[in-house]
């Protein structure tokens, strides 16, 4: 029997579950590989560990071919859920793995849509849940094969039809299983799952005889765990770059906090504060019976100069960066460094806030505006060609008379980056109007040759 079919074989009419003899009759030169479920399971587990490291602290296996990720609160670095799913698909495609990424309010629904929905990327919101899954075949409901078969004999083909059946007679005939799976798919019943645990050398945990739920208690034990973790880190002489704190609830659900550090650290106060800041996002439910703190990413500590001359120690800026980054998102904190480019938009690039000092500086001789528009704004002007500044221009509905001007500063397109910029030219002028406000204008093209640009004028920035 075929257990998996490659994308090249699908057009030939082969499908999973087909008998091998039948397949060979359809495609005589078929290449057959023996199935290796053990290796598949191992690979899936590796993938789970990778996605736990990369995307979300809570990842569970959905054998034989699925992974479940709890992405609540994990999507913002990718610009939202769609960005996260696209990133997963892209990265899997890079290693030639076909995948479908579905985000749904329940695991049951996501499981069904990923396998039977036929779409590679889909986000289902709670209001669209029923509509999205009601038309799916019964096979997607994770029922035993014979139950599905019996239901099909009764003429029930889709989830929606099963949902419409009276529940009592269904339970009488098929037991509680169909009802439970339906409730799980529709989100009426919680579905706990066991997350994979990445092999990490640095991990500490605490179990509670009595479940805890108060935020103050959770914070107290968080600090105790941080103490333990920092002691372990000291023993190996490393610092943590990322921390996962998992709360195992008594109803088997798992909540998690993930915190990143800009610089490897094992400072108890700093780490404790970072985690405790986020405790309010954790829903303890009926209580928490186990807390696990692990450091999946560890690095040697950076060197730091220590002074013992009685000066007041200056707090580390990286600790503040971590606090703000965990609140706003890591991508919202950055430094801006010079890049070797004359195009203004490309001359400045964002780098990590705690990156090493840069060497490159912008040239000081060329005045640059304090505010640069994300895209240049088209203006109406009157100017002499080819190399005179405008006499006046209209921007945002107001006419401004140019009193003094400097320029042009000619900036050529970066032909080594793009064909389209082969000939393009911008002539920048710095102009001052009668109120003293200064503007950065440019003309697309050199004013003579139409191939260099359309001779339109733009306002690109404002000087102080």
């Amino acid at each position, binding site marked *: 029997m075929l257990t998996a079919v490659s994308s090249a074989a699908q057009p030939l009419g082969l499908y999973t579950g087909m008998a091998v003899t039948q397949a060979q009759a359809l495609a005589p030169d078929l290449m057959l590989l023996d199935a290796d479920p053990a290796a598949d399971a191992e690979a899936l587990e590796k993938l789970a560990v990778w996605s736990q490291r990369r995307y979300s602290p809570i990842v569970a296996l959905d054998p034989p071919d699925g992974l479940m990720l709890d992405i609540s609160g994990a999507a913002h670095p990718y610009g939202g859920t769609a960005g996260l799913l696209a990133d997963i698909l892209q990265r899997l495609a890079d290693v030639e793995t076909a995948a479908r990424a579905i985000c749904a309010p329940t695991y049951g629904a996501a499981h069904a849509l990923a396998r039977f929905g036929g779409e590679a990327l889909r986000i289902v919101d709670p209001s669209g849940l029923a509509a999205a899954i009601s038309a799916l075949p019964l096979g997607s409901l994770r029922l035993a094969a014979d139950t599905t078969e019996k239901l099909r004999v009764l003429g029930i083909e889709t989830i929606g039809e099963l949902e419409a059946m009276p529940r009592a007679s269904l339970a009488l005939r098929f037991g509680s299983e169909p009802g439970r799976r339906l409730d799980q798919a529709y989100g009426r019943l919680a579905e706990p799952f066991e997350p994979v645990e990445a092999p990490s050398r640095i991990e500490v945990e605490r179990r509670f005889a009595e479940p805890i739920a108060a935020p103050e208690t959770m914070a107290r034990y968080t600090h105790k765990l941080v103490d333990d973790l920092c002691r372990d880190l000291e023993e190996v002489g490393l610092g943590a770059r990322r921390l996962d704190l998992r709360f195992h609830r008594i109803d088997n659900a798992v909540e998690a906090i993930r915190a990143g550090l800009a610089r490897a650290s094992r400072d108890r106060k700093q780490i404790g504060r970072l985690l405790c800041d986020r405790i309010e996002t954790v829903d303890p439910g009926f209580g928490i019976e186990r807390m696990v703190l692990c450091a999946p990413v560890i690095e040697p500590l950076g060197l730091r100069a220590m002074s013992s001359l009685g000066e007041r120690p200056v707090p580390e800026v990286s600790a503040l960066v971590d606090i703000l980054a965990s609140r706003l998102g890591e991508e919202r904190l950055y430094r801006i460094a010079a890049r070797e480019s004359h195009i203004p938009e490309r001359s400045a690039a964002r780098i990590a806030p705690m990156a090493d000092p840069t060497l490159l500086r912008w040239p000081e001789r060329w005045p640059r505006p*304090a505010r640069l528009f994300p895209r240049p704004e088209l203006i109406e002007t009157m100017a002499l060609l080819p190399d005179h500044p405008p006499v006046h221009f209209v921007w945002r509905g107001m006419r401004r008379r140019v009193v003094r001007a400097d320029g042009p500063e000619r900036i050529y397109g970066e032909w080594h980056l793009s064909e389209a910029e082969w000939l393009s030219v911008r002539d920048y002028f710095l102009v001052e109007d009668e109120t003293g406000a200064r503007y950065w204008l440019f003309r697309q093209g050199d004013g003579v040759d139409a191939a260099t640009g359309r001779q339109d004028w733009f306002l690109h920035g404002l000087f*102080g």
Partner: protein
Amino acid sequence: MTERGARAHLPQLRARIAEIEGGERRQLGVLPFGLSAIDERLPGGGLALGSLHEVAGGAQGVTDGAAAALFAAGIMGRTGGTVLWCMTQPDLFAPAIAQAGLDPDRVIYVEARDQTSVLACFEESLRHGGLAGVVAEVPRLSMTASRRLLLAAESSGTIGIALRRWRRREDAADFGQPTAAATRWRVTAVPSKPLPVPGLARPRWFVELIRCRAGECADFLVESCDATGRLALPADLADRPAAAQAWPARAAS
């Protein structure tokens, strides 16, 4: 009372007044502008460190805050250490900030989602104490919010600049509302000095000190920050023989 007797009492009285005014407030020193015309109008001879200051643009600068940003960058450039710049609109062009005297390696930009989160970041970073200064672009600043910021700045000794920048020109009336800031500045670009050749001279700002705690209002006509973050008095206004003599010397060389 004789003159000598009065002198002896003065330090005592000053200490008492400071005690009444500041409670446990520490004297953290000042950051001078390096221009005696401005410094002598400020109590202590400069901008108070560990305090909150407000800067806004005038005229068109109300909405773009370009000159105000450079003014703030110049002040921060003269401190030493890392500076945090909080904003919601990432339209600041870093090369200009570098040209105003603030090295790019010293600035960490924080792009917050909304104004509330800008204020939260502003306060958190003022309280932290490891920074040389914090600039935050905020449109509205209530008395309560500014008091919190001032207390945070005083507790750490970090200088904070609230860069007031509004979405619409009409909103700038908000700048009349009182806040707890130690000084309040308005920076307006004015026409620069005509040059004998085509081109542009150094930008000129009309800097108004609208409010100053324990000081008086004043206004100054200055030339914009240079690459070391220092303002300058226009040569035709600075009544200094040295400045006047420097011109032929430079022209000759």
